[in-house]
């Protein structure tokens, strides 16, 4: 058994879809929700497959959305 899964390499949803990349904005919380966990934390890019370039932009937009209450900061324990 190999340690790493031999699954298909994830591709960045933004790099492969420039239309989606243009919609990456803090005023679009429905898109951002796909990249936070149900507790409100930002999903690491090793899980989501987002490229480093877009992960940096994504993080900024998520934080802006949090500041005006469109996304939660961290949900308290479940």
């Amino acid at each position, binding site marked *: 058994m190999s340690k790493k899964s031999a699954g298909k390499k994830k591709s960045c949803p933004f790099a492969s879809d420039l239309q989606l990349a243009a919609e990456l*904005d*803090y*005023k679009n*919380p429905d898109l951002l929700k796909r990249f936070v966990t149900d507790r409100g934390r930002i999903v690491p890019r090793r899980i989501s497959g987002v490229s480093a370039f877009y992960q940096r932009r994504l993080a900024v937009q998520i934080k802006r959305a949090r*500041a005006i*209450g469109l996304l*939660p900061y961290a949900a308290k324990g479940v």
Partner: protein
Amino acid sequence: MFLRKYETVVLINPELGEEAVTKTLTRMRDGLTSTSGKEIRLEDWGVKRIAYELNGNRRAHYLCLIYLGSNSSVAEIERLLKITEAVIKFQTVFLEDRVDPAKFEFEKERKNLSELAKRAKAKADARKEVSA
């Protein structure tokens, strides 16, 4: 003279009614004109749930003003928002540097609504249809 493009999102206490919204809006517009800024468009996102509690509020009326101005426009608008009691929170985002107001396509930008604004408009239209 080059200007900069900014947008300011404001959260207004929904319990104070429409009057508070218009009052906040006139103050913002006053601040903008007094610092020779130019309004591009106003987005009304309506009353929305806040993802967390803010000063005891779970809901807020969201407004988003997009404008051309200078750093003093932002300072003046934020100063006015701070002294407006109905305002729960606000956030200004810098969008574009060195915009030439003479060449700026105001009409085109006016129609360039964000997803939230589109949804709020659709909701308001649906409500109007029901009541009509």
